[in-house]
């Protein structure tokens, strides 16, 4: 019994209950405090974690839950889940920081704080659970708060997007549950540690294939895998900034984490049989996502499709069934969480200022109008297209390296084709990001009419422009539309709250890019344990 791991989901749960006692005005500060406490605990877990034994489950808690069914409340952490837990705690904390400076337009801050804390319980629990049903419960807990985040605080078409999200993912969960039950029926245990240790012995090959298929489809909806991805663009486009960040940064990772924790280690024969299909869907997703991005007109939608492409690399890593591929997938998971989280933060900031994320309406010249926001957008895009020296590179590069030499049972020519297609995908990824940057940040600022927080008084404009630039008579809000040829209205560049929320992600993106060993040293022993390779040699 280890208190630290119990505290991780318990603190946000108690914090959520505690929102009853706080007023609406202090709610966001309360949220910051609770999520900071969770982050502190996550850091403490990382501190007491034994890095020499990263392949072994640590800090375990194993309590009987429903003895009649053999269900146990089993939590633990190893090199695979530790980075994800810390990432979750960090992103949630940053979301609250952002929220403190940028309260939701729809109001009801207290309710949003409550919802996000419940969401955090589910996310952290998913990554800690070591019992299949406990995993499933936490997996499901996440859906409801996310539904409300989209449905209440979302954009114009939020209802439809939220309904699509919940129905689609619930359907996926149903199939996932079926797969988990097949595993239970065959192996007779729900304990993930035991299941992983037996490397699939005790489960017939046909049952493994069926179970892998069912679990795979369930996880595929969440990850998402092409062609089960269409809930994602809608949900992302409509979700508020914090919702998009957590959706892309953490929720998608729950799907790929399921592959790393359950599907591949527990069902090795099923994985081997279906890996070529998984790989094919992965590279289709890469190309398809990139092409879809190239034609998008909405910034948030484009980033959403880019997630399809990036998760394609993660899945390609899994499909190779090699240690390097698994490492690639786990690295790509974290990198995508950091970078796409940052991208959604920045794009959310842009939408807040311009009042739209439509590329046509945004016009160009953002580097002139909002130099800092545009520079951060450039950084995030460059990181996302996989520039070496930044975190995004290692996941992609190692996935391709894994595909160069897949596991012995797999067809090498096929995976070489996957590798080549993935390579073309990296060029297309660079293409859509650079074309978007060229459209939005370069060129001259075309006069758009922002409906966002335009500056009202001459003093505010003075602050933005600096003392030496002449002040034109500026109309605000709707008045601009009728006041002759509209002028570019000065907007506030990056705020302190935004910087506080964004810079940690920038710093970590650079840190993992320069020093990939920080993550790889953690995941490699765990990956070797999955494939039953002893020691540190591969």
């Amino acid at each position, binding site marked *: 019994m280890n208190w630290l791991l119990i505290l991780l989901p318990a603190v946000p749960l108690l914090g959520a209950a505690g929102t009853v006692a706080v007023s609406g005005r202090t709610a966001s500060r309360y949220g910051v405090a609770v999520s900071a406490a969770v982050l502190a605990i996550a850091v403490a877990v990382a501190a007491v974690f034994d890095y020499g034994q990263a392949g072994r489950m640590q800090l375990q808690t194993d309590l009987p839950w429903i003895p009649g069914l053999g269900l146990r409340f089993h939590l633990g952490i190893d090199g695979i889940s530790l980075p994800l837990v810390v990432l979750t705690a960090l992103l949630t904390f940053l979301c609250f920081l952002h929220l403190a400076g940028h309260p939701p337009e729809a109001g009801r801050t207290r309710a949003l704080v409550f919802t996000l804390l419940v969401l955090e319980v589910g996310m952290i629990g998913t990554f800690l659970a070591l019992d299949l049903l406990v995993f499933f419960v936490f997996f499901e807990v996440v859906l409801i708060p996310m539904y409300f985040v989209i449905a209440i605080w979302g954009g114009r078409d939020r209802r439809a997007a939220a309904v699509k999200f919940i129905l689609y993912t619930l359907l996926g969960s149903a199939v996932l549950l079926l797969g988990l039950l097949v595993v239970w029926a065959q192996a007779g245990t729900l304990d993930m540690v035991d299941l992983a240790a037996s490397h699939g012995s005790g489960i017939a090959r046909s049952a493994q294939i069926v179970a892998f298929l069912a679990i795979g489809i369930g996880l595929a909806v969440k990850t998402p895998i092409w062609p089960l991805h269409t809930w994602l663009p809608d949900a992302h486009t409509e979700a508020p900034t914090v919702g998009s960040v957590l959706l892309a940064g953490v929720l998608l990772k729950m799907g790929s984490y399921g592959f790393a924790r359950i599907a591949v280690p527990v069902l090795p024969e099923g994985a081997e049989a279906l890996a070529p299909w998984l790989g094919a869907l992965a590279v289709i997703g890469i190309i398809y996502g990139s092409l*879809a991005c190239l034609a998008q007109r909405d910034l948030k939608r484009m980033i959403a499709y880019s997630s399809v492409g990036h998760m394609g690399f993660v899945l390609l890593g899994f499909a190779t069934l090699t240690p390097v591929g698994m490492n690639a997938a786990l690295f790509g998971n974290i990198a995508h969480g950091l970078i796409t989280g940052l991208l959604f933060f920045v794009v959310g900031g842009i939408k807040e200022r311009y009042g739209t994320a439509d590329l046509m309406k945004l016009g160009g010249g953002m580097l002139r109008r909002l130099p800092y926001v545009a520079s951060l957008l450039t950084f995030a895009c460059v990181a996302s297209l996989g520039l070496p020296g930044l975190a995004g590179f290692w996941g992609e590069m190692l996935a*391709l390296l894994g595909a160069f030499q897949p596991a012995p049972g797999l067809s090498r020519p096929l995976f070489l084709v996957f590798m080549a297609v993935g*390579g073309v995908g990296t060029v297309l990824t660079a293409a859509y990001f650079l074309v978007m940057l060229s459209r939005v940040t370069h060129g001259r600022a075309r006069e758009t009419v922002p409906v966002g927080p335009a500056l009202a008084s001459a003093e505010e404009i003075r602050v933005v422009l600096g003392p030496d*630039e002449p002040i034109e008579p500026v109309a605000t809000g709707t008045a601009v539309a009728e006041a002759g040829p509209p002028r570019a209205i000065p907007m506030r560049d990056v705020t302190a709250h935004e910087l506080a929320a964004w810079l940690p992600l920038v710093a970590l993106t650079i840190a993992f890019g320069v020093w990939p060993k920080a993550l790889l040293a953690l995941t490699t022993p765990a990956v070797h344990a999955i494939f039953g390779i002893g020691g540190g040699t591969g």
Partner: protein
Amino acid sequence: MITVVALIVLLPFAGAVAGLLGSRWPRGGSRTEESNRVANRRAAWSAIVPASASLALTAWLAVWSAGALPRGSVSWSGGEFWSGLFPGATEGTLTLVETGSVPISFTLRADGLSVLLGMLVAVVALAVQVYSVGYMRDDPRYPSYSAFISLFTSAMSLVVFAGDLIVLYAGWEIMGLCSYLLIGHWWEDRANSRAAVKAFLVTRLGDVGFLFGIFTLGVAAGSFRIGDVLRADIPTGTLVTATMLLLAGVAGKSAQAPLHTWLPDAMAGPTPISALIHAATMVAAGIFIVARLYPLFLGAQPTLDVLGVVAAVGMLGAALAALAQNDLKRVLAYSTISQLAYMAAALAAGSDQAAIFHLLTHGAFKALLFLCAGVVIHHVGSNRMSHMGGLRTALPFTFAAMTIGFAALMGLPPAGGFFSKDAVIAAIEHSHGPAQPFLYGSALLTVGVTGAYAARAWLRTFFGPSRVEPLPEPPPGTAHVFDGREAPKSMLWPVGVLAVPALLLGFAGLPDVDWGSAAVSLLVALLGAGGVYAFWRSAPRQDPARMLGPFRVVCERAFYVDELYRSLFARPVLRLARAVARADGQLVDGAVRGSGRLTIRLSGFVRLAQNGNTQLYVTGLLAGLLLITVAAVVLA
């Protein structure tokens, strides 16, 4: 000693960070004239000091490598052409990163080849940084500009001193990013922005092949370390595959056919950038990497043959394109492609020494030419040669320096280009291979065309009637106009300093001159130049490019390769993208929405039974009861 190497790489990086974050600190938002001036001054310091320190350290490294015995360093097989001059070598590993497959080692290594290239990079980078202070004096974005140059210098040094192929690849890609950022420096103009995107994407396409080549080598050798890869016993088939894949990256970075189209457009960047990145250093990285892994290429003859054909086609085509351009910088850009093809030809002919020799002299004289062109453009306010003419009286210093540069480009003695180009042509002449006659013919022909286009540019710029029209306000994307006669001292000093190696570097190759082939190529070059002179003399106001006749437009458009690629790749990809976006909305998502509608319709059927009519319910109940009874009777 490895600490010195690390410092050479890290100092410019630190300068970049300082320039980017510190220039406007702490009043970041202010854009007044005063704060711009302070920011530019700080940025200039944080750019020039690390560049100077880096140059000093590189010089120290060179002295150490030339004089010291290789104490405590890895042993070398020897036999490389640089081992006589720089025998000292060193290697240091920071850490080994386990990936689950072939490990990546963060290794730096310095040997003769890296020292030679490192000197070139450090000298040109410092010259360009000093020059830029004057050239970009009133540019409010000078801080980011100089920081990106520092970042580029750091990345290029990383490529030069990398001891591991993945580390090299990291530097290689970061250079590409800096190139993108700097080409797009004047991003208000859409054309510059497009040129930047094109440069990044075309080189990235080649880099995909490059990365796969690295995979092939690394997996075959069991290590990504360059030393291990060179020592490993790799079967010939694998070697050919790997080197062919590497060649894709080489063609992309060094702007060789068929991936050369980005370089002329890259001239949209500020001229000092063209001098540093797009003439002297980054584009030479492709040649460098072949020389670095030359033992592997020697083991893969088919790759060298392909390289030879690519070089032969590229050198002549680019030279012809240069002959018809009106933009002075584009002339120099095409000439860069052509000269890089010479280096590639030397490699294909089996002489890495000649290739690296030409790389060094070319780096010096092409950087000189670009910096001089910058002075001219600064003075005239336009890139077009049709706006220039008669400038030798207004810009005497620049005229002298640029004459040295053009002489080196044409290969006239005693300038550096004469010796290095002779080394290349002699190497081609004495090589054997299926592509040799083709390559040799193309090389000689190109010498003549080079003489022609260099003479044309020289005459059109500095001689004839003055066509300079004072422009009150230059269009965006060109440097502003000076009223003075010559550029400021901070711009002339780097020009003067670079003129020295451009003139004298060649004498290092004096003992190896093949006088016979040198005489032939000198004659051909003079023939080309003389032809242009004759045409120009008959009508000094007109462009001597008219000697090409109807072929002129074809050359000016560089044989329509750009148009071909646009209709072959760019447009189909965009069409495909739109099709995918449409299909995603209608087909994939349509299926999802369709399943939703189907469910609702099905539920409509079920609802028919639940209409609230009691009679119907009772009828159903009785019918069920009847069925059960019958079933019980029949089955019992």
